[in-house]
Each structure stands twice: as C-alpha cells, then as structure tokens.
C-alpha cells in the first residue's frame, strides 16, 4: 500500500530539513509512538495503533537509509512487530523537501506500507483512512508544535 501526502510548513527549507531529520524532535508527533532508546542510527520504541476498540502495539525501530541534504531527500525505514501476536508493519518513507517561498517549505511524503497479520486481513479497507488520518495528525503536530517552537 502506498500513501502519498503533501504539506507545507512555515519554515525555510534548511530549518525544516534540520527538524525532519531529527527523530527525537519529530518522535512526539508520530501518533502513538513512544521513543524508548537510540542505538547508533537506529531508534527504537513502541508504536501503538488505535482504531476504536482495535489496538495494535508494535515493538518498532526506525533507521535512516538515506539523507541527501543537497536534494533535500530523506528515506527512512521503519519496522514493527506486534508485541502480542505475529503481525508486522514495515514502512519505507521517502520525504522530499522543496522551497515554496521564503519562509515556506513543501514536504512530499510517500510511505510504502507492508502490513501482515490479522489487521492486514481486515477485509474492509480502513487502513487507507487510518493512515491518512495518522499522517494528518503528524503534520498538524509538526506544524503547530515543532515549527512554532523552533522559529
């Protein structure tokens, strides 16, 4: 499943880049994510996905696969495994930043998701809606909290 999202933040590209490549600063904005430890380039924590009564907890890790500052392109790979149960989530997230004005940056995020386990067998497709909503929350948080606090 591929999810595409584009948003703008009120900050110049260089500043946006610095924030978006800093896991410790963006972690609080990832809905349900609790950063627990950092080892080298790997960030580990718990990702709790809540869709009404359905709650999935994943032991998760996040690494940067690519950080190309000249192209303002960053690729992250995340993976998680259900803490109870056998399901997994793997995500490759490609973000490309582009100046949209003096103090404005357009961020294009493409996430490729690979979900297994019982949640993946949910016949009615709500994962798209859920993911879109999670990304909305993430962006909103990013805009209000991080960018506001850093400018």
């Amino acid at each position, binding site marked *: 499943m591929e999810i595409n999202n584009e948003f703008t933040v009120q900050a110049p590209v260089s500043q946006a880049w610095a924030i978006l490549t800093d896991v410790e600063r963006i972690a609080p904005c990832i809905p349900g994510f609790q950063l627990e430890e950092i080892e080298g380039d790997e960030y580990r924590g718990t990702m709790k996905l809540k869709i009404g009564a359905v709650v999935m907890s994943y032991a998760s890790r996040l690494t940067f696969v690519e950080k190309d500052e000249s192209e303002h392109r960053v690729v992250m790979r995340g993976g998680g495994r259900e803490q*109870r*149960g056998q399901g*997994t989530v793997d995500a490759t997230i490609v973000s490309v930043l582009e100046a949209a004005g003096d103090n404005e940056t357009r961020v294009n995020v493409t996430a490729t998701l690979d979900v*297994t386990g019982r949640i*993946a*067998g949910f*016949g009615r497709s709500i994962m798209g809606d859920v993911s879109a909503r999670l990304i909305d929350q993430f962006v909103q948080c990013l805009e209000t909290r991080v960018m506001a606090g850093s400018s």
Partner: protein
Amino acid sequence: MTTSLPIDHELHPAGAQYVGAKINRVEDPRFLRGEGRFVDDMSLPGMLHAAFLRSPVAHANITSIDTSRAAALPGVTAVFTGQDLEAEGIQPIVSRAFLPGMGDNLREPLPTKKVRYVGEAVAVVVADSRYIAEDACELIDVEYERLPAVIDPEGALDPGAALLHEDLPANLIGRKSESHGDPERVFAEADHVFSHRFVHGRVAGVPIECRGVIAEYDRGREGFLIYSSTQIPHLTRSVAAECFGLAESDLQVIAPDVGGGFGIKAHPYIEEVVIPFAARRIGRPVKWIEDRYEHLSSAVHAKELVMDLELAVAADGTFLGMRGRYNANAGAYGCFPQTGMVDAMCAATLLPSLYKVDHVSYEILAVYTNKCMTGTYRGVGWGAGHTAREVLIDDAARALGRDPLELRLQNCIPSEPYRSVVGMNYDGGSYQESMEQARDALDYDALRERQAKLREEGRYIGVGFSPFVEPAGFGSKAAAAVGQKHQVTYDWGSVTLEGDGTVTVRMGFHSHGQGHETTFAQVAADQLGVRMEDVRIKYGDTEGVPYSTGTFASRSGVIGSGLIMRAGGDVRDKLLRLAAHLMEVSPADIELSGGKAFVRGAPDTARTIKEVAQYAYFGPGSRQLEGDMALTSTRSYDPPESYSNGTIAVVVEVDPETGKVTIERTVAIEDCGVMLNPTIVEGQVAGAVAQGIGGALYEEFVYDDDGNFLSGTLLDYLLASSMEVGPIEVHHIETPSPVTDGGIKGMGEAGTLAAPAAVLNAVADALSPFGVTFTSTPITASLIRDAVAAKREGEQ
C-alpha cells in the same frame, strides 16, 4: 419404475416397500434434541486443549522459532514445532504425481524450513484450556525471512517467480494436453468463433461445523484413537498410519456426527497427524477444534481457475468444436489424494458436457502459489468449467440472435447412452427433456413477455438456463474418466441379520447430512423384508466398519446401495432357506415383507423374521442346513461410470444502478435415475443450489498482492442466508441407469455445479439492453454496477 438390470440382485425384490418412498429421516430426532455427538461434544478423561500458531506471512523462510516464553506460561503443557516432529521421524503427507513430468508433493505436518501461505500452521500449543493455548501462541517468537509471494497463476511459471518447493524445478504441479477429432480444422472453417477468458473465484464448502481432532495414545498397545470431523475416516487412518510408520489397525479413526463436509473434509489434514503426535508426547488426550479463521484460511479452498474457452459454431448454430485452457491456482500444497490438478482436470474433461461436439482439445495445468491449498468442493472443477462454458454459450446465443435454450436444444445429445468425444460414457438420461421441462415450469413465453413489459417500466428481469450432466457414483472408472486414474477407489460393506431379527449394515460411507441412516435402511429393509425401524446403519468408525474411500463425489448412494443389495441379497438367500426350513416349504415359495416371512399368497402362515433369526442363531434345527449359514455378507462394489443430468433455471431482477440481484425463482429439474428417497433428493438439490447461488453472487476468498488473506471471517466470506436464496422448486425425471446396481445414479452436486451459470446467465439476460457480459465469479453488486456503468460510458 422397475428395471431389468445386469446385476446380481434386485433393488426392489418381491415385498419391497421402502425404496423410492418419501420417508422422514430416522437420524433427525437426535439432532433436533441437541443430542448429536460432534467432535467438540466429546471429552476424554485428562484431556488437554491445543491451539495452532499460524503464519502471518505468505512466503518466508523460518529462521528461528523461540517457544520458551509460551512454554513458561502457567497452564501450558507443551509447545511443539516442526523440529519436534522431524526429530521423531514423523513423515510428510505425500500427494503423489501421476503424470509425466509431475513431482510428488511432500507436506511436513509442521514446516521446518518455510511457510508458504497465510494461515499455515507453524507450531502447536497444548494447554489446560483453549483460552490459555491461544494466550501462549501469542508468546511464540518466530523470525521470518520474507520471500516474494506468488499469487497470480499466470505469473507463477515466469522464470523470475519465487519457487515454492525447492525440490521441484518450477511452480508447475502438472500439465497435460489432449485433442480429440480435428479441432484445428473446424475452428479454421467455422462461421463463428466465440471465446473468452473466464476467471472462476476461489471458494469452498464452508460447513457450519469447522474441523476438529481429538487424539489419545494407548502406550500399552502403541496405538492411537483419533476422533476427527472428516468425510473419510479410512483414508485418514491410511495417511496417519503412514506418517507414524504404524500398521493401519494400530490406529482407530472415528468420525462421529459431522456437521457438513462438501468435500472440504474429504482430505487428510496435518492436524490429524500433529494432534496425535502431541497426545503421544504428552501422554494425555488432546483436543483441537478448528476455529473459523483457521477454517477459512487453512481448510482446502477450491475452483480458482483461469479458463480460456473457445467455441466454434456453424452458421446454423451447430456447435462444431470446443477448445479450452485451464490453469488452476492450486495454492501451496497438493491435496491428498487428487493433487492440485483436480479442478483443472475435472473442468477440462467435462468440456463438451451434453453437447454434440466431435472436435475438442484442451490444455490443463495447475500451479503452486502462496495461497491455501485447493482441494475438493461440491461440484469440483466441473462446476467452474461448466460456468465458463455455459456463460460463453449464452454470449454466443446473444451474438447470433438465437434463443439460448433453443440453441442448446439444437446441440444437445440424445437421451440414449452416449460416448462423448473425450471418452466419457454417459449412461443415458433426459438431456433434452430436462431443458423442456424447465422451460415449461417457467412458462417461458409468458416470462419473456413480462420481461419486455417490465423493461418499458425501467425494471430488469432476466432468465438463465444451465443444463448439466454430472459425473456421479464416483468409482475407479469415473475417476479415470476425469483423468484421475491414480485415484483408485475401494469400498466394501457388510449386511448382518442379528439374532433378534434386526439388521445391521456396516459401511465406511460417512453420513454428514446425506441421510444414510434412512436411505440405506430403506434399501436394506427391502432386501431382507424387515421393517425399517429394525435396521441400523453403522459408519464412521474404522474398527467397526469395512474399508471405504469415503463419502464424496456423489458416490455413497450408488456404491452404498450396490453393496447393500449385494451383501443383503446374500443374506436374503440364506434367510429364505432358513425360513423355508423352519416352515417346511420351498425357499422359492417364501416372501419376505414387513418383518415377516410367509408363504406367497398365504399371509397367515407368517413367521416373524425375528423368529427365523432366532431359529438360525439358537434353534438346533437350523444346523441341519448345509453350507455356510453365517447370516452376514461382506461385498465390494466399484460401479461403472454413471451420470446424472438436469437443468437449473433462475429468474432474477437486477437493479442496474446498485447492482443488487434479487432471485425471484429457481427451478431445478433433476434426473438421478432411480431415487431411493425423493425427499432426500430434493433436500440435496436445494442445498446444492443455495451453495451455487452463493458462489455466483457472494462467496470468494480474497488475497491481496502480498498474499495477505482478506477473508478470515464470515463477514468477509459471505454465505447466503434465507433472504438471498429464495424458494427453490425441484422437479424429477427418473431415467434409470442401465449400468449401475438398481439403476441408481449419484446426485447432490449438480446444484452447486450448475446454478452459478444459471445465475450469471440470468443477470446478463436481465442486463442485455446494456450489453453486459460476465467473465468471472462472483458477480458482486459492485462488479455488476461497474460493468453496467462501463457500458453506459462506452456508449457516450
């Protein structure tokens, strides 16, 4: 209807009163009181409960399994993986190759190296309760190394496709081509050639009782007692014995009351090996009851076929030739004993059906993919192939401006026995008459008038016909006729007159809804002149009944009745001699009826059969009779090919804007030769039709491109309810088979085989103003509406 047949005994001996009558079922009261005994109703002393951990991924190497956290959970007795079974030398289940170039398929009871579909069992937990066993499954840590999933059957043979079985050169299960007549020529010369690619959806029988196994190990005798919800207790015993390296009689397999089968329970399964293994290791009985997710994801699926069909037609509508290519998406393993070839072979060999075509060719192949293995489901590949063919014929009729029923009648074979070009020996039937009877039952002309009138009001009704022949009474010859020569069947049964005058029939044919306790009692009672209530039909326990390949493929009625007629006839002869001896007359003068033996024409001479039996068992005088006087006989029967036939017609109304289909009427004409009990025939037809309607409109197992299984609940895999199915009218024609014992033909699958084509044709007929045709099943509301919309847009 009486018949004169080349058999050793009559179905209706003098005095017979039961066969052919509508008789209420004798097995019903226990089910109606909730006193049936299904596997999950059993409890053995000290019994533990098992749950399986199943693969969440479609294709992966197992790099490690850590069961320590699970084993440490309070209430857990043991956790076993494939390594544990391998260490004790438990052998894989083998489905054997039977074509050149085909390889055996070996399935480890629990995989040691790889998982090949979502839902495949990886480990088993045994605990004090199922609840705890499921808790523990969540604590097993399995590391998987993901491999690409092979989902599309057409891509499965690409050189770059991931290989499912490393011991095989490719994902090919088997391939076979046949050509009869000169199809190349007739296709080149034909005035019209119609063709389509038809994709039949993946479906299954989905009985309301899931599977289940209880196993107990007898350490002293080194043998197993296994309860299983199966249609085939003897084959299950054979396979389990082989896996354990034990003699057949070291295992006792009991199939108690079984809550529906439909072919799904006609295969041995890995749980029938793993649960006994666990019971042996632990030394206590272990129960596993398949839950609905396990059933939907891991009990055999069926009928997923990609079919390319061509029909060559002359200018006057005569069918000249048919060609087909059948590619079965057979899933990850080969089912025992048919292998994944079963659906494609069945579909292909029935290609000409009841049409006079002299030029037919087909290619059959089946491929391994990362889905649940396929096996048998009522109507098997016959149904899928039938749907593809009958839909193409309707498309052809529309294109030619011909009435679909007239076009079929024009090309239909005669009623007499007929050898089809591919070599099937139809034993005669009512091929044309059944179509005519369906037409009359519907009042066809009036229906067409109503259709035209309603269309003016913007309402769309349609009618679809689906005439069929159904291979039935499946013995070795029928198996060979559908390309399954390797599937030798073997069935025997015994009839015994007990010392109290009651009759015991012992057979391996399990009954899980078919009503054997009634129909076979009818046959046996008529053979021995006893009252039905004095007959007991025993089945299901490998210790108690003779060997049988089991109940599937509409075989029990023909073979079971034949066995009873043969063995019962033997006992009858002895009974007549005994009665004659007792009554001091000639055996030729004795008539048996209503539980009495009497001199023909002199009912007041009657002695009860109980008296005669007691005379045999306990009366010293009977010892004066010479020869073997055991009042029991065991006989086998492997019948010739026989074929039921009939026509199903469906009337629907379709809402083109929402795609909603309402089934207004279903008419089923059934000719299964001599009927044992019309009530049961009607029940079988109606039930099969309902499953056919389900397959046409609602049912499908869906996998996404990664091999995730999307149909794990009955909200996803939708079964038709009383609101969707609607009333089903059954009409009978009775054309006795000239080749089987008693003229009986097997029945029970035709509705599932033939109803989907009737539904698809009816919907397409309703929507003919839009020019909609269908090339897949199921035709969901979404598919129907979207097809109409595509046609409307195309016009704009």
